[in-house]
């Protein structure tokens, strides 16, 4: 169980997060949705331990976690494989190479181990970043707008990759997005933040099973997306 109790955060006189209270079950995918500037990235960074200046309390998050940033944050002077291996210091050295290669195959990038990030497209770099997150030994993953600047086809392909991987490995996932479709497809729980409330204005449960969400646009997904749109635009 993950708990957020009375979480607040200000940047100077600007209060970004106001008294957030929430509970999330282990093994769920929580999509945090909201307009730009509503504080969703700030919330994510606090939960991931990247920002420790806040008031309130968070429980269950004090563990190893992976993070997929908006930019891939790969070391430009290291090959793709080395970028993944570098986060596996605590793994048995004999298994590091195997684990790193497996992670690359998971995101369908087997064969480019020796390429440098500058030789890859933006989408491929982001996939390497996702592979790194999966290679790292943790069951808690954070993603901050991971599909920003990717085209629709690539986005769909990545979501098709991620859902079964998260399910198979029983990850708890917090994904921040402003994309309603991404939230509706990936999120088991969709937590919507208001533009200025600094808090969740509504939390929806996805009625569609994970396995069925990417089989074309079902009526239920469309209905869910419409509900989300209405809540955001209220």
């Amino acid at each position, binding site marked *: 169980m993950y708990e957020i109790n009375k979480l607040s955060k200000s940047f100077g006189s600007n209060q970004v997060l106001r008294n957030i209270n929430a509970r999330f079950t282990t093994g769920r995918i929580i999509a945090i949705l909201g307009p730009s500037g509503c504080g969703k990235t700030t919330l994510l960074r606090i939960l991931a331990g990247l920002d420790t200046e806040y008031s309130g309390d968070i429980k269950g998050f004090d563990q190893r976690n992976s993070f997929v*940033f908006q930019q891939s*944050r790969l*070391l430009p*002077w290291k090959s793709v494989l080395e970028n993944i291996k*570098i986060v596996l*210091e605590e793994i048995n050295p004999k298994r590091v190479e195997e684990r790193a290669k497996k992670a690359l195959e998971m995101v369908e990038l087997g064969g480019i181990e020796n390429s440098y990030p500058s030789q890859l497209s933006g989408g491929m770099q982001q996939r390497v970043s996702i592979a790194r997150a999966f290679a790292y030994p943790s069951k808690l993953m954070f993603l901050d707008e991971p599909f920003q600047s990717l085209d629709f086809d690539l986005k769909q392909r990545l979501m098709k990759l991620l859902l079964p991987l998260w399910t198979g490995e029983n990850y708890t996932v917090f994904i921040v997005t402003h994309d309603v479709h991404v939230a509706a497809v990936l999120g088991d729980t969709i937590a919507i933040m208001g533009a200025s409330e600094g808090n969740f204005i509504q939390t929806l449960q996805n009625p569609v099973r994970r396995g069925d969400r990417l089989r074309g646009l079902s009526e239920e997904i469309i209905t869910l997306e419409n509900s989300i749109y209405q809540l955001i635009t209220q």
Partner: protein
Amino acid sequence: MKTFITLENKKLIEVAVGILFLLLLWQVISMIAGNNVLFPTPKATIERLLEILKRPNLFNIFFATISRVAIGLFLAFIFASVLGAVIMFVPFIEVLFRPLVSAIKAMPNISIIVQIIVWLGTLRAPSAVSFLVVFPLLYSAVVEGIKNVDPSLLEMANLYKISSKSQLKNIYFPSVISYLAASFGAAVGLAVKMVIAAEYLSHTPTSIGERIYFSRIYFDMPGVMAWTIIAIIAAIVLEVPTKVLTRHFTKWRDES
């Protein structure tokens, strides 16, 4: 014609044209001067150079000067790197060293050479001069490299619990090397000039600087020019390993 001029050929042709132009300019100026003592012709210089190349002790002289430059460069690199590593953990050290480094940078080179000759004597002065003039250049590059390490990469490293040792090796070091690579070329050229100047002023035995000195006092200007060409070759020889090393550490840039 087009197929003959490949990219590599084009570079060679450009170098050859540049050298020919230089020789032509040189010839014109020496003809205007009309005096081999004042300004020797390319022919006189090349003849003198060929005589020097036959000398049995040329290799010792050449190697000795290069060694003095290399020792100074190496020590400057080590000191700059160690100090840079300390600054990463104790940033205040950079503040302490700032006035000293600025003073060395601003000091006239001749002041540095004269002082060092007095303190260290003719044999050790050239290497010390090489160290002292190059150290501020490399140190500044190291400090800039450290200051400009991408904070987003450090944040990623901290999130993934990458050890300090690994961060130093895999993030700080490559970042610093990029800055050092840019400075090293200039550092080599500067070090060669300053070492030979120190050798000249202190008459360091078995040195290119000493040979230039004796050529000058005997009004052997073709000799001065010939030894100058040898000094330029020394700088090129030293640049080769530094270029190889920096290319090794920055090969990821060439792959893009």
